[in-house]
């Protein structure tokens, strides 16, 4: 092959080198274009799947809250028992609740802020309601939380 190439005229050799270079460049260009086209497609697919997931998640969360709210309306006693169990699991101090004039008021003491906020989130999932107000009263390191829900 090498001998065949060397026996060619200089012009023929240059033409062959040019042709091979163009073919190799073309192949490389095609492969690279294909790779970057696939990358672009995958980015679009990811964005689409992520957006779909977030949409479905938010809708499902709304659905879950709505169902929880309906459940609370129908079985408030059972739900309040579940909240008590939840309060036990969070080791809330002096947990109490009272229902007055279409308002549910939950009072508890917990010194750590972080678990207290987690408790509020779990509570919202259980009753499907967002608290209208949250009061944090502080005496030294003791924090007393009062959550008020409109029911």
């Amino acid at each position, binding site marked *: 092959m090498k001998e065949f190439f060397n026996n060619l005229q*200089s012009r023929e050799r240059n033409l062959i080198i040019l042709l091979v270079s163009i073919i190799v460049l073309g192949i490389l260009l095609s492969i690279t274009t294909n790779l*970057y086209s696939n*990358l672009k497609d995958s980015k679009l697919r990811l964005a689409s799947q*992520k957006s779909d997931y977030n949409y479905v998640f938010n809708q499902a969360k709304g659905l879950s809250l709505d169902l929880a709210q309906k459940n609370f309306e129908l079985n408030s006693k059972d739900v309040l028992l579940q909240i008590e169990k939840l309060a036990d699991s969070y080791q809330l101090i002096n947990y109490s609740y009272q229902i007055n004039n279409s308002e549910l008021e939950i009072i508890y003491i917990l010194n750590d802020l972080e678990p207290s*906020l987690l408790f509020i989130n779990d509570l919202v999932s259980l009753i499907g309601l967002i608290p209208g*107000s949250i009061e944090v009263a502080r005496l030294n390191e003791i924090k007393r939380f009062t959550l008020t829900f409109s029911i």
Partner: protein
Amino acid sequence: MNKYFIHSLSSNSDDVELHHYVDGAYKSKKTTHLDSVSEFIDPDSDIFYFVPSSQISSIKISINDEESNEAIKARLLSDLDDYIVSDISQNDIFINRNPDLALLINDKYLSDISQSLKSTGAKIHVYPEHFIAYIRSKSSILKLYDRYIFSFDSAEGFSETEAGLNKYLDLLNKERSDYEPRILIEDKTLIKNFGDSNLDYVGLEELHSGFAKEHLTLPNLFQTNFSLNYLIKRFQINKLDIALAITALSLLVIYPLSSTYINNNYANEYKNETINLFKKINPNIKKVVNPRRQIDEIIKSYNLSEDNRLDISGIESIKRLDIPEITKVNLNVDNSEAKLTLSKLGSAQYKFLINILPQSNLVLLNEDIETKDGKVSGTVLIKFAI
């Protein structure tokens, strides 16, 4: 700028003599083998290699301006069938215009020279050695090493060893009786033959200097065929450069491949999690084609209110207000406001607190405070900027 002028010590051997010049000034002279020249020459140099003229057939030709080089070569080959001793196909033919000249040289011989010179990575010029005399004076005779070099008006040339000189001179007298060369070296035989009226003794350094200035009008026999090794040497590409280039090219390929793979994996994960969400809502759902439309249909079937608030605005801000002197935080989720009750908060601390409110997406609405002994007490109303 380094310049190397390389001459063959003998027409039949590969031993050469290197003459080294820096910015036109003579530096050194070295004798070596042609295959070893790369040991002495840097890639940023210019090389002038002189092929013994006895190895080249130089033929005066007549050229029409419109005639292509290929046509001239074809005409030359048909005219000179008997003239060239070796197989014509084994020769490279160079056509030069002004002076109109054809140069024929054995392609393997030239290729071997080119290969050896390419190993230097330098800029290469290859010329018949009689051109060095031709530049000085078109008709001239020079002696270098073991041979006499003859140059003619038409840029033809030849070289002959001392042993064959008399025979060649006889031939010259017969064939070119009007040949009146300048004698560039002191030589009794030449003076005897051509007389002493045309003497122009000149040193090799001066010939090199003149040639370096005027060589561009002459045909360079070096063929710049593609050679990766030569290019690597020529552009002084070292292993680090090659490694960097390979790394860059690899990244160019690996980046889209890996990113595509990761994106597809994440996309599949989101897709699976979306399906799982549907299965949690209704385990009988087998296929999710258009998740948005499907979840909307489910929501519609449950007859839910469109505006279902999911976040407790401001709840995260409570963490930022966890200061002992803020004795009460009353967060009104519905209108995203909070009333802070302060008790003996240091005034500097209070100023700092007020200053960092915007950074925490909080806006001061109202303050009802009093400062006593550098301590601030009272109430502050803030709003959560959502």
